[in-house]
C-alpha cells in the first residue's frame, strides 16, 4: 500500500508541477515582475521540479509538513485547511455509505427472494434509473422539489445547525449521494443471491427443515456478501467523486469545492494534498475490504493459514 501511495504521490507531484504554463499569480495584473520572482523563490518554485519534490518529501516525511497554501489560503499550512474541510465531506460520505449498504442489501434480498414478481421488476426499474442518472441530477431535483417547492428542508447547508438539525440540513445531499450506491448494491446482491438460492447447499438447508427465509438469511446472504465486498471499493470512491459537485450545489464547505478551487487558483501544495488524501482514502478502503473478506468468509482466513 505504501509503495502504491508513493507512486501516486510522485506521479501526482510531477503532473501538477509540470503542467504547461507554470505561472504563479497569473491573474494578478499589478504584481511586479520582481515581486513574482521573489515569491517564486519563497515557495521554491524557482528550483528544478525534482528538487522541489525532494523538498516536499523531506518536509512531509520528517516534519509532517504538507506545505503552505500559496494562493487560496495564503500562509496557512495545508494540513490546517484539510483538517477543517475533511470532517464535513467525510460526514456526508460516510453517512451516505451507512445508508446505502443496509438499504441496498435489504432491497437486493427482497428482489432476489421475490424474483420475477412485480416487486423484483419494480426494484430492477428503480435500479436502472438510480444507476443511469448522475447524482448531481438527483441533487438538483431534490433541492428543487423537497427544499424549494415543498419547503421541507433548507435549500443550502445550514452551517449554524448542530446535531439533528445538521443532519436535517444535510439529508438532501446525502440522499442524492446514496441513490446510486443503493442501486449498485441492490443489483449486485440480487444477482448473487438469486444464483445462491438455487445452489445445492441451499437445497440441503431447506431439506434439513429450514424455511426459505431462514435458509436465505442464514446461508444465502452470507455467501453472497463476499463478492459484494468488491463493489464497496468503487462505491465509496464513487460517493466521494459525486460529492465534489453536490457540495457546490448545496453550498457545503467540504473538500469538493476546495479541490476545484485549488486547481483553478492554482494552489499546487493544496491540490497535491487533496490528491494524496483521496488516494489514501481509496487505498485504506481497499485494505479494509481485504481484511473484511476474512471476517465475512472464514474459509479465506483458514485457507491463508494452510498456505503458510
Amino acid at each position, binding site marked *: 500500500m505504501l509503495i502504491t501511495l508513493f507512486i501516486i504521490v510522485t506521479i501526482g507531484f510531477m503532473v501538477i508541477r509540470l*503542467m*504547461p*504554463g507554470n*505561472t504563479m*499569480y*497569473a*491573474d*494578478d*495584473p*499589478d*504584481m*511586479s*515582475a*520582481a*515581486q513574482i520572482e*521573489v*515569491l517564486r523563490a*519563497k515557495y521554491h518554485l524557482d528550483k528544478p521540479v525534482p528538487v522541489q519534490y525532494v523538498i516536499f518529501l523531506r518536509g512531509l516525511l520528517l516534519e509532517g509538513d504538507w506545505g*503552505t497554501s500559496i494562493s*487560496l*489560503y*495564503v*500562509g*496557512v*499550512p495545508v494540513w*490546517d485547511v484539510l483538517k*477543517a*474541510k475533511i470532517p464535513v465531506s467525510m460526514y456526508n460520505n460516510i453517512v451516505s455509505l451507512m445508508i446505502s449498504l443496509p438499504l441496498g442489501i435489504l432491497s437486493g434480498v427482497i428482489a432476489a427472494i421475490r424474483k420475477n414478481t412485480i416487486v423484483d421488476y419494480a426494484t430492477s426499474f428503480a435500479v436502472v434509473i438510480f444507476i443511469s442518472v448522475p447524482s448531481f441530477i438527483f441533487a*438538483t431535483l431534490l*433541492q*428543487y422539489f423537497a*427544499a*424549494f417547492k415543498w*419547503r421541507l*428542508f*433548507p*435549500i*443550502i*447547508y*445550514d*452551517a*449554524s*445547525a448542530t446535531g*439533528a*438539525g445538521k*443532519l*436535517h440540513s444535510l439529508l438532501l445531499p446525502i440522499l442524492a449521494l446514496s441513490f446510486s450506491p443503493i442501486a449498485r448494491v441492490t443489483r449486485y446482491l440480487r444477482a448473487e443471491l438469486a444464483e445462491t438460492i438455487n445452489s445445492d447447499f441451499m437445497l440441503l438447508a431447506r431439506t434439513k427443515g429450514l424455511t426459505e427465509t431462514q435458509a436465505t438469511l442464514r446461508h444465502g446472504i452470507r455467501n453472497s456478501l463476499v463478492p459484494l465486498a468488491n463493489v464497496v471499493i468503487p462505491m465509496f470512491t464513487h460517493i466521494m467523486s459525486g460529492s465534489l459537485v453536490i457540495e*457546490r*450545489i*448545496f*453550498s*457545503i*464547505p*467540504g473538500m469538493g*469545492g476546495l479541490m476545484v*478551487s485549488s*486547481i*483553478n*487558483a*492554482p494552489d499546487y501544495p493544496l491540490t497535491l494534498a487533496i490528491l494524496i488524501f483521496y488516494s489514501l482514502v481509496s487505498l485504506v478502503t481497499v485494505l479494509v475490504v481485504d481484511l473484511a473478506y476474512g471476517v465475512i468468509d472464514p474459509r479465506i482466513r483458514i485457507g491463508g493459514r494452510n498456505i503458510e
Partner: protein
Amino acid sequence: MRKRPLLAIVLLIACALSACGTPAVEPDPDPGSDKPEVYGTLYNYVGTVSTLNPFESSETAGTTIIEACTIGLYEYFPNKTGDGFVFEGQLAIGDPVAKNDEGTLWEIKIHDNAKWENGDPITVDDVIYSLKQVMDPLLLTRRASQVASEYITIKGAVDYCQQGNSNSVPWETVGLKKIDDYTLQVETESFATVNDVKTQFSTKYTHLVHEPTWEACFSADRTSNTYGTITGGWMSCGPFILTDWTEGSQFVFERNPDYIRADDISLEKMVFYVITDSNTALEMFLAGNIDTVSLGAAAIEQYEDDPRLHPSRPGSVTSICVNIGNTKNNNALGNKNFRKALFYATDREAIAKLVKGVPATWIVASAIISSVDTGVFFRDLPEAQAYLPPNNGYDPDLARQYFQTALDELGIDKAEVTMIYSESSSTTKAVSEFLHKTWPEVLGPQFEFKIEGVASSLASSLRKSWTAENPNTYELAWGGWSVSLTDVANGFKVYTGWFNNKNEPHYNDWYDDLWEKANQSERGKTDNDYRLDLCFEMEEYLIDEALTIPIYETPGRRLINDRIKLPLDDYKPAFGWGWMYAKVVD
C-alpha cells in the same frame, strides 16, 4: 411493549420535522421604535472567500466582506441626495493636504474617536503598521507592489518591499511618517494630485489590521501570517462587526455602533451566505432566503420584465487575445491585416444574442467613467464613439480583403489558427464553437480554424507564459481585463511594454509614451480633457491594430427584493450597489 420502537420512530420523525422549513428569518424590530433608521437584516450571498486578509485577498467576493468590517483612509459614500456618491475620508478627515509645491509631500488627518471592536483606539500607528505589513519584505504579500506604487509611488517603498531578506532597506527610508497620533505624512517619489493620494489609500489592501492579533498570527520565521483565514484571528473595525464566520458557508455581521460614520448605516445586521451555484442562489432568492441574486445568462429571459430587475453596466470586455509573437504560419498573427481579418469576420451581434450580452468593438468597458467629478461614462462620450467601426465591426467583404492581403504579405497559401477556451465556461465554449463555424465560412477554405477546450487555470497560464524563447504557448485565447472603473487612463497600462502580466507580447514606445503622459505627467494628472484625448488616441490605436479582438460585454442583471431600498437607484462604478447602506423597508 411492542409498540415502543414504533413510538420512538414517530417521535424521532416528529423531532426531525419540527426542524423543517426555511431557515429562520428573524422578525425585524418595529420600524416605529426608538431607532427608526436602524433596523432589519439584509440577506445576501457571495462566492468563495478564502481569506479576509486585506493584503492577500484576490477574490471579488472578498472585497465585499472585507470592506464591511474594516476601515481605510478614503472611501466612496452615497451622497445625501441619493443620486450619486462622494469620495470622502473614512478614517481620514477631509482631503490630503499638500505640504510642498512639488506635490510630493502630503498630510492626512484622521479621526481621534475610531476604535477596534475590542475598544482599542485607532491611531496613525495602526495606519503605518498596516502599511508596513502589506509591504513587509519577508511576507511579501500579494498587494505589496500595488501599495508601494500605483496611483502614487510612496518614496522608498518599492525598494523596501522587494529587498527580500537582505535587510538593506530600513523601514525609516519609506515615505510614511507619523506627525502625531492623528496625523500621517506621506512622501511620494513624484508629483501627485489630491485625487491620486486619496485613490491610493481607498483600496481594500490599504485597510487596517489589528496589530496584536496580526502579530499573533505570524509563523515562527515571520514569512507567513494567518490573519483573517480559516485558522487565524480577526478583529473588526469597519461599519459592521463580523460576529460569525463559518468558512465556506456564511458570514454574519452586526452594525458597529462605534464606527466613525455609524449614522450612515441603517441595517442592524447583514448575513452573507457563500453560494457558488447560480441555480441555488436563484432558488434561495425566490424562496425569500436572500434579498438579491445575480442572474446568469440562462435565467435572463425569464425575468426580463421583472420590476425587481436592476441592470448594471459591464466592467470588462470579453475579448480574444492575440499572441502576436507566435511564429506559426510565418508569424501570421503578427500581421496586422491578418488580425484585422479576424476582427471584421466576427459577427458580434449574433454572438451577443447567444450570450445575452452586448456586441463590443471597444477596449474601454462601458462601466468605466471618464471623470470622478462628472460621473460621465467614457463610452458615452462622442469622441469615444467616433472611431468605432460600423455594423459592430462585422464586414465579411472587408475581412476577406484583409485576409487575402495578409496571405500575400506572408507568402503563404493557407493559415491554420487554434484558439484555446476554458472548458468550465459554457459561454466561452458556445462562442468558440460559433466562431469555429462562422470564421471559416467568412474567410474561406484557406483559413483553417481549430478550437481547443482546456482547464481554466491552464488557459490562463498558457496566455501568460509566452517568452521570447518560447513564443508559441498559445495563438488565440479568451481574456478580459477588469481595470479601474474610475481611472480610465490607468487601465491602458495592460498594453504597455513594461506591464509584466501582459496577454499579448506588444511593445511600442510611442504607445508607452502616451500612457506615461496621461498618467504620470503633471498635465495628465491635472487636465482631464488632455488626459481623455490621450485615452481616445490609445484606444483608437489598439482597435486599429487589433492586438486584442473585442467581442462582447455582459451587463450585470440583478434581482433585488422589494423590501430592500438601496442608497442609490442602481449600481454605480466604484461605489457598487452599496449593500452596507441599504435599508429594510418592510
